[in-house]
């Protein structure tokens, strides 16, 4: 009798949890699928389901030179910001990862703080600094601003990779007479490389998608893709943006798949 009650009770719990989980997963994935489907519409509106299917808006995208220009700027800035983040971030991660000192803990908090502080406030602050020292907004100011908000991802992922490293490996390498540099190049770097790549990937994606910092540090000559899209959407609902969204979604899925292969991205983000 009580056993029967127990199974019913367990069943109700599992049913509720599973149903909510599935609904939540649908809510997460549905918007991307909807945009993907709408982007193939043959009509002029964002009606769902579309009246018919065609590639016309993708063809339209081919001629949208303003979007091309903004996409090129975003790509260049993201590549530079990622490169700078990797160089500065990996070095800093090596320094602070195994150090128990107070200064290392403080630096760690400092390097992580752009993740929680409102980036818009930082964007405004950076603009004021650059205008104070007489540096006009340019790709350079954008790269600097983006690096500040992207470097935490590199630092965090590199520190996580270093934490998994067996100290005995390095000790045996040293005992066998390898110099620190040689040990770093031949032992440490290959082992933490997937972590660095994962961090660089997330840094790249967040730079490419950055709005709050770009908002203050760009001008018409350095238009950035997310801002161009945002302004297009503020004005009118353009189906070209749906096609561009389709391209971005497919590119993201492809990149994530590649990164999953190379770095085991999914395990990295849940450890």
């Amino acid at each position, binding site marked *: 009798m009580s056993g029967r009650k127990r199974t019913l009770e367990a069943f109700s719990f599992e049913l509720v949890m*599973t149903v909510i989980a599935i609904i939540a997963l649908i809510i*997460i994935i549905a918007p991307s699928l909807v945009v993907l489907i709408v982007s193939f519409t043959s009509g002029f509106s964002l009606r*769902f389901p579309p009246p018919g299917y065609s590639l016309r808006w993708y063809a339209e995208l081919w001629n949208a030179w303003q979007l091309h220009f903004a996409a090129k700027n975003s790509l260049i800035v993201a590549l530079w910001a990622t490169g700078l983040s990797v160089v500065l*971030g990996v070095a800093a991660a090596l320094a602070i990862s*195994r150090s128990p000192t107070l200064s290392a803990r403080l630096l760690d908090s400092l390097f992580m703080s752009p993740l929680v502080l409102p980036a818009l406030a930082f964007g*405004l*602050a950076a603009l004021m600094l650059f205008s104070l020292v007489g540096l006009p907004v340019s790709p350079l100011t954008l790269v600097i601003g983006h690096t500040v908000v992207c470097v935490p991802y590199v630092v965090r992922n590199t520190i996580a990779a270093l934490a998994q490293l067996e100290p005995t490996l390095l000790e045996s390498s040293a005992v066998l007479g390898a110099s620190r540099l040689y040990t770093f190049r031949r032992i440490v770097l290959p082992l933490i490389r997937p972590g660095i790549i994962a961090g660089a990937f997330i840094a790249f994606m967040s730079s490419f998608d950055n709005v709050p910092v770009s908002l203050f540090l760009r001008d018409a000559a350095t238009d950035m893709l997310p801002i161009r899209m945002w302004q297009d959407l503020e004005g009118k609902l353009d189906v070209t943006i749906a096609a561009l969204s389709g391209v971005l979604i497919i590119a993201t899925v492809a990149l*994530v798949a590649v990164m999953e292969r190379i770095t085991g991205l999914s395990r990295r983000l849940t450890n």
Partner: protein
Amino acid sequence: MGAAPASRDVTSYGMGLAVPLALFFLVFFVAPLLQLLWLSLHNDTAALHWGLGQYLHFLTDPFSLSVLGSTLLLGAEVTAVCLVLGFPIAWLYQRVGPRLQTIIILIVLLPLLTSVVVRTFAWIVILGRQGIINATLQSLGIINTPLKLLYTQFGVVIALAQVQMPLMTLPLITALSRIDSNLDDASCSLGAGSWRTFFKIVLPLSLPGVIAGCTLTYAAAITAFITQSLIGGGQMLFMPMYLYQQASTLQNWPFASAISIIFLLAVLAVVSVFTTLGRMSRGYGGA
């Protein structure tokens, strides 16, 4: 003797390697924020007169206070929705095989890496007058005139919840995977039902993950400029847009600076409350 190099730990590197990034942050992160603080303490745009005028203006202006209040409330609502929807995902993740686990993670991860403008745009398509929800409800004959879903608090909360869901779910998955599954079985075999086991064992032990997830979700939700402005529209004003309008459209930098500082302090206050709770919960969970 080789004692000197051996005394240096081969597994750690000198703090010197952190100097370039530390300098970079000092010049391009700390200095700008200090300048922001400095400017906010001036009463005029030329920054000639020191004073707390900007802060007094904000704190005595009902409109500014209501913007701050609705922003903080928005963050709480989004965080609550993310927690209720995200926890079952993390729970399900623990129950399925490795293949499904990877699929769940990738589904959760995808929005995190998809452009936020694209994600927000998707919600415009879903919530719009001719959007999926209205079209479905109308074709089923449930409603005659389209519901207003865009430009409402409901729309902003649901869109932001989807956009920020990964930030909640990933720490929860980590936290749940650290719980000893024997505790679950022990609780059940001692006669506690599944619901009771969940609320008395699983939930308390996962509190560090809950708090980490809430901190990230809350901070991200209240600063999500794009989603707030596109789904909320012109009638709903939150702190990021308020800041942007004052700084960019009105060129009132000292007031915009004061808004930034107040906003920063609000975020820091919330984060430190969560961190304190996290520290307490770790003591509880570890006991």
